[in-house]
């Protein structure tokens, strides 16, 4: 017998409260006195609840994540400033890993960040540095994990010229790998480069480590695998973006060759018609939830913002918007750059549909709605008042432009 037998009656008897006709026991004292036998702490659900209670609201609200929105306004900013991550400096890189982000409008896409993350992997394996080719704001690149930057000055749409410049850079600098996103423009550029250099291109890599890359072939029946070659394009969502401390992203000097005019005589960008593209392809979605009652104003606002309309399930169930407009787990999962939510609470099923959106703007009367927490810009106000003000501001701006 390894364990002592406890006599529970005896233990209870020692905590008997004297002087009452009926036997009474002080159980709290008894709890405190029992040895923490199994070593496990006893939970105090009431105490936890008291801690999670959000102060200053009419309705009783619990914040189980312990992240109270009211305190989030000031406190974390100071915390971030305190532990500002220090810069990683690679002064003497053993080699360079080049990345060519698409960066439409000078902003890195999530795919670009993944490609930079993959390049970081290849660079860190042997003391190399990541070189980004293209014009982008420096702090963006630094946070994404880029050590060196070099611009590729090409006017207009001229992929052949870009490929020629890249070819010169690849020849002139000590570049061990060049990584591009397998996106419309990245894929085109990589193939031009492969044709120019005559090197093999590992197109659409689906996994990447310093030792091996894999891709699908023969209609996804075969997986090809090899050591990373010099030219690689990376499929979307195949590699994690860089999550560590920022790198320095300093410009490098390189004499680029002069360019010849190409065969493309003119190029004109035709933006997608937001009324016609599907929700899954839309770039900017304005969405209505149960908090929106004025749908005439909502439609006018969508048109004025030149966006694609969406809705929460509550609205679609009520028949106020077509089912095709439903955003969320059982609707459409968006790939949009920006999501503007009006009067949407942000149920998990709805937030799943917005998970890939880079920017979220929310208008809601409830400070503690999950959508407010998810948003990059959160406005606690009545949607019925904000919508006309927005339309007014948009059309007013147009009228001012039209006058002179």
């Amino acid at each position, binding site marked *: 017998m390894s364990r002592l037998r406890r006599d529970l009656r005896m233990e209870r008897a020692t905590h008997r409260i004297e002087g009452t006709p009926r036997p009474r026991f002080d159980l709290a004292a008894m709890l405190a006195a029992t040895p923490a036998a199994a070593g496990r702490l006893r939970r105090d659900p009431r105490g936890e609840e008291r801690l999670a209670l959000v102060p200053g609201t009419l309705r009783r609200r619990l914040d189980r*994540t312990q992240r109270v929105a009211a305190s989030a*306004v000031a406190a974390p900013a100071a915390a*971030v400033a305190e532990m500002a991550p220090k810069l990683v400096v690679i002064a003497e890189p053993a080699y360079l890993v080049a990345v060519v982000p698409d960066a439409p409008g000078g902003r890195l896409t999530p795919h670009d960040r993944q490609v930079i993350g993959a390049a970081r992997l290849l660079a860190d394996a042997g003391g190399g540095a990541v070189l980004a080719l293209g014009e982008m704001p420096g702090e963006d690149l630094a946070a994404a994990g880029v050590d060196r930057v070099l611009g590729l000055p090409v006017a207009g749409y001229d992929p052949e010229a870009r490929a020629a410049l890249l070819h010169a850079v690849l020849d002139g600098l000590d570049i061990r790998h060049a990584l591009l996103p397998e*996106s*419309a423009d990245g894929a085109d550029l990589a*193939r*031009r480069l*492969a*044709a120019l250099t005559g090197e093999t291109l590992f197109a*659409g890599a689906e*996994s990447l480590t310093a030792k091996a890359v894999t891709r*699908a*072939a*023969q*209609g996804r*029946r075969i*997986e*090809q*695998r*090899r050591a990373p070659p010099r030219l690689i394009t990376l499929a979307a*969502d*195949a*590699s*994690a973006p860089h999550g560590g401390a920022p790198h320095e992203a300093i410009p490098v000097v390189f004499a680029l060759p002069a360019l010849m005019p*190409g*065969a*493309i*005589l*003119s*190029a004109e960008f*035709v933006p*997608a018609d937001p009324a016609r*593209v*599907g929700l899954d392809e839309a770039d*900017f979605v304005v969405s209505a939830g149960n908090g929106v009652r004025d749908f005439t104003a909502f439609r006018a606002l969508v048109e004025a*913002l030149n966006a694609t309309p969406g809705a929460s399930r509550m609205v679609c169930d009520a028949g106020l918007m077509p089912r095709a407009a439903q955003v969320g787990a059982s609707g459409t999962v968006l790939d949009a*750059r920006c999501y*503007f939510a009006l009067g949407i609470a942000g149920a*998990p099923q709805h937030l799943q549909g*917005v*998970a890939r959106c*880079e*920017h*979220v*703007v929310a208008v809601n009367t409830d400070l503690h709605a999950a959508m407010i927490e*998810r*948003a*990059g*810009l*959160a406005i*606690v*106000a009545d949607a019925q008042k*904000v919508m*006309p*003000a*927005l339309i*007014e*501001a*948009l059309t007013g*701006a147009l009228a001012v432009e039209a006058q002179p």
Partner: protein
Amino acid sequence: MRIAILLSAGRHAVSGRPAPVSVELQAIRLARELIRQMAGEVDGNAAGDITGFHAGPDAGPLKDALGHGLPRLIQLSIGAQDDPLPSLAAALGAERFDLVLAGRSGQGGEDAGLLPYALARTLGLPIVADACALAAGPQHGTVSLEQALPRGARRRLTLRLPALVTVHPAAPAPLPFAFAAMRRGMLETREGVPAPRAAGEVEERAYRARPKLIAKSAAGASATERLKAATEAASSGGRLIVDPAPEDAARAILAHLRQIGVLRD
């Protein structure tokens, strides 16, 4: 206008049986509609011709392409493991084509979409990727095309001919199959240029689908944390404005939308 269309031996996406590749059939439609448009303008029936080229040991499944509106197919006979590039370059270099159309990528082979680029380089042609619409250009000897971009956007280009253009799946669907058209179509076999491929360092195995990357949280995290990782933005720390006047709210929203670049004026 003489148009060449490159047809590769594909495999059906679901059954895996030999079949023509859908984008290449879409290329046939684009070519036919371009020629019809030119014929209307030039008022003659000799506005152009369309020829299909395939380099490979067997043109069997590509007979279907004749049924989808291709009048003539030339098979350049090479071994199954041979590189099609020299054969195609020789055949296309011998005749002058104004426009060469290819698919964005094959389906059933290497599927890298590299061949059109290598061919354009060997023939010295400019190449434009991902066309989804073709029309006669503003001047003679030009073509204007629409390039499919992600998210439904398009880029309208004017291109000097001769050129090589690859076709995107967003182009109009292939013409319906007609048995009589297949019977009428001409299939010609020529000798190709044998070009054995050098053995690569690529190792092949059966495909295994990998899970797509989603936002991860630490292993053993609570359900709340996992949900948070799946639904929350990468960049947190947003701005919060409580109870502003509607005008101030509108101004703040518009400024934010302009700053992130979704609102152009």
